[in-house]
């Protein structure tokens, strides 16, 4: 499984030197069950199953703060994306479905919000 995540993301988690800068930069770190630096460590130690069950994969904002600031160019956001894809690419594992949308609409919600949520949460 670790090889799949490495292939999808193009990231080598072994480059991580555990400085924690990604977590310190992350606007969502205290909302996630595993903080970004832990996430990288868990990919490296092949604990992908636990990550696939985590809430955090749906809370990463893709703001690229961790990607910008990582001194080793590990790009944690790409690992989170790859693990989320490993979940939603499975049959019946979408995190958001079209029938949930009508109740979420409000008159000001931009199309861009719905498009991006589907791109992130659904295959």
């Amino acid at each position, binding site marked *: 499984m670790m090889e799949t995540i490495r292939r999808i993301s193009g990231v080598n988690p072994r480059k991580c030197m555990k400085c924690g800068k990604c977590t310190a930069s992350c606007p969502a770190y205290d909302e996630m069950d595993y903080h970004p630096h832990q996430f990288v460590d868990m990919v490296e130690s092949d604990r992908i199953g636990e990550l696939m069950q985590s809430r955090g994969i*749906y809370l990463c904002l893709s703001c690229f703060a961790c990607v*910008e600031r990582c001194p080793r160019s590990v790009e944690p956001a790409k690992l989170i994306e790859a693990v989320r894809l490993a979940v939603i690419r499975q049959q019946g594992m979408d995190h958001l479905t079209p029938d949930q949308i009508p109740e979420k609409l409000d008159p000001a919600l931009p199309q*861009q919000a719905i498009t991006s949520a589907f791109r992130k949460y659904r295959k």
Partner: protein
Amino acid sequence: MKFSYFPGCTLKTRGKDLDRWGRASAEVLGFRLEELPEWQCCGAVYPMAKDEIATRLSSVRALMAAGERGGELVTLCSACHHVLKRVNLDLERDETIRDRVSRYLELETPYAGETRVLHYLEVLRDRIGFEKLAGKVVHPLRGRKIGAYYGCLLLRPSREMEFDDPENPRILEDFIRAIGAEPVIYARRNECCGGYCTVENSAYAGRQVDRIMENARSCGAELLITACPLCMYNLRENASNGLPVVYFTELLAEALGIKEAAT
């Protein structure tokens, strides 16, 4: 001076003010935005996975169309700019992606990222120049204390976006000065507004927005400007006690004296 223009899905609907005043101001400043005759939604988020090809195709089509029409593609929406620019770099730098895209689209010559992707603000800074812009201002917005809200997508990752200093940007502040107002610098101007997570969990986005608003207000901002319709939505709709927010093109049109004339 003319550029191909990719408005994107939201500028045709909820984000009309970003589009309308951007186009009108361009005419006054001496450049023309020529909308691509056909375009598809860019997908709104950059596909980070290296094995995703289909989600890159709409961007490639727009990039190639602009390539046939002068080679420069301008966007106003931060998200479209982010997606188009990064997909373009993928086509330039990633041989596997280029090869798979070329075969899917049955291209005789593979597309290798030749088109130049520019954000409207880059056109103002690098092609028009803020000094020249300032010279065209007829209603300087004197005394207005304006906070620039950059968000994420224009700036990061900076080695790909090459837009401005990602930690201490100044392009929007320079823009604010050019239209005669006073920029208010606050630390959270490049922090995320909550992005697409607002669809599932608006309270989560609200927590991000409140931190940004509190910071901007405490530094003295009376108004925020943005270049992103999704940031606009989050800042306006999810703040518990927010400052007013407008698109930067609305203020540009106001300063150029074309907004009152039209309304």
